[in-house]
């Protein structure tokens, strides 16, 4: 049974994403403040929330993130306030897909989506090599059985 945690790069990637989104939203709110004064408060709230998420929530959240490759299933565990455990048996899985955004490519990480008939399991960004090996393991495992 293999147990994997997320690389630090993932936390940094999401940190930059959250900061960027927060910055864009705050900038939009401030730009329209002369027209709608309440947007100033919205900008402050969004800014504070963004900082809390980026500096406090994300590091703890990604620390709880665990990917377990057992003999029969892929198990993903995560959550701080609400703990979640997503189990996908290999038998139910149809195929795996990696997903890279331009920012993720810069960091050399990729998200993995495991597709089953009724649902899918999303694994947050992991090292590109790890993503490739998971996809290979899941796609080729069947033919080696």
């Amino acid at each position, binding site marked *: 049974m293999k147990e994997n945690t997320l690389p630090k790069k993932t936390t940094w990637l999401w940190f930059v994403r959250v900061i960027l989104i927060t910055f864009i939203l705050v900038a939009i709110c401030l730009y329209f403040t002369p027209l709608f004064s309440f947007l100033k408060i919205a900008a402050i709230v969004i800014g504070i929330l963004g900082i809390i998420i980026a500096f406090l929530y994300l590091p703890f959240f990604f620390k709880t993130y665990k990917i377990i490759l057992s003999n029969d299933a892929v198990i993903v565990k995560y959550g701080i306030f609400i703990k979640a455990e997503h189990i996908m048996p290999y038998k139910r899985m149809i195929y795996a897909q990696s997903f890279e955004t331009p920012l993720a490519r810069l960091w050399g990480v990729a998200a993995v989506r495991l*597709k089953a008939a*009724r649902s899918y399991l999303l694994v947050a960004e992991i090292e590109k090599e790890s993503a490739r090996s998971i996809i290979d393991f899941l*796609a080729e495992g069947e033919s080696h059985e």
Partner: protein
Amino acid sequence: MNKVFRAHPLMIFNFLKPFLFVLLIPVVRGLIQYAASGEYDSILKFEIVLSVALFVIGFLRWWCFKLILNEEKHTITVISGLFFRRTAKINVDRLSSVQTKQNPLEFIFRAVTFRINTEAGNIGKADYEFKLSMKSAKAVSTLLYGKGDNKKIRFSLFKIAVLAATTSSAFTGILVGVPLIYRAGNLLEIAISDMLINEINNVSNKIETYFPPVVNAISLVFLGSYLISFLYSLFKYLNFRLRLGQDKMEIRSGFFVRTRTAFKKAAINNVRIEQSFLMLLLRRFAMRVSVGGYGESKSRSEVVIPLEKGQEIRKHFAEYLPFFKCDTGVFIKPRPTAVNRSRFLFFPTIYFISAVVLTIILGNRFDDFDRFALFCLWVVGTLIIIHAWFCLFECFKGKVDFGENVFIRSRKGFKTCELYCPKENVGEVKLVRFPADMWHHTCRLRITVRSERADSLCVRHLDYETVKKTVNEYFEINA
């Protein structure tokens, strides 16, 4: 060994399709205007820049697309996306079906639309859809399913025409024909629809029958619509060919738009042998298979044999799909008592009496419409008689067999149906009892296949205790 395939350049235009009317056509129009009069709108420059940018993005997206086949590992890898890059690796055994489609434009450019379907796809949408050159598509199909010594089976035009006739309806004809006539009229700036209505009025007034002209007009509209639908189906099924490999099946059809679907026999969920009313008159059957799909996933229904005699179709079924056969010989049939048999004609009798009573009331209430009401009764009465025949079929021929596979024979609307499904593909077994069933100790048994299409079939008035006991034993339920 990896084999890499690139998409056909026609795919670039596929990416630009959403912008065709809002951007590309105005640009072309603007350029023509500029060439003709030397004048251009101020927005044209912006539109040209945007079009070029979109074309470059489309070109790069096409350039980034790759299809990699690994023969040793039996996997298929699809890499797509320019900014948001997606890489999917699918085991070939997990594919539901692979479909190629070719419209006249693609035929000119020697390209095909290639669709990869798995059970994880969205409803009505392929997992991956892209353009490949004809040569590459052929090579991919060969690599996926092997060349083998496929047995090619062709069917005569008559059989295809009957299949088209049985899958056509006046309603489909209206759905296809009306927008076509409307658009053609708009494009040619001719009131085609008005001309057609006038023509129908003229012809229906000229035909002298016992029934009023409106009946002739309605009949003409329905016949015309049915003809459109028939032609549409005929061109869809023309060139129908079946190729049989050891593990796979390949179905080709189409005249203007050519479709080719390949799938493994293992991906078949269930087999249906059907007989519509027209087929009943010709004493012929059709065989369909439902491929792939669970829950909210991708599934297809394909005609395997369009038209064949009963004996012949069963022979083909045993030959092509022997693992679907169900031969225990222990059938559950509707109770053979006179009371139970008469129950099958309960609803047709009610429908017929209601139709007659309604016609009499309408004929008396509206004197001018009595002949029209009579015509309606004649049409509805014919339909009720056909329905009654199918109910009698269910009574005398309906049965269920829980063997190695599940077999169920009954009627479905206006056609008879035999459904063969492996035990593990049975999604739901439903036993329904109405007050009359409780009185007669009978039940209705409905079996639904676990797939997106959820093919189901129901046999009525079976002995409740026998069905309950058999189902519990078969599915190992401790009730």
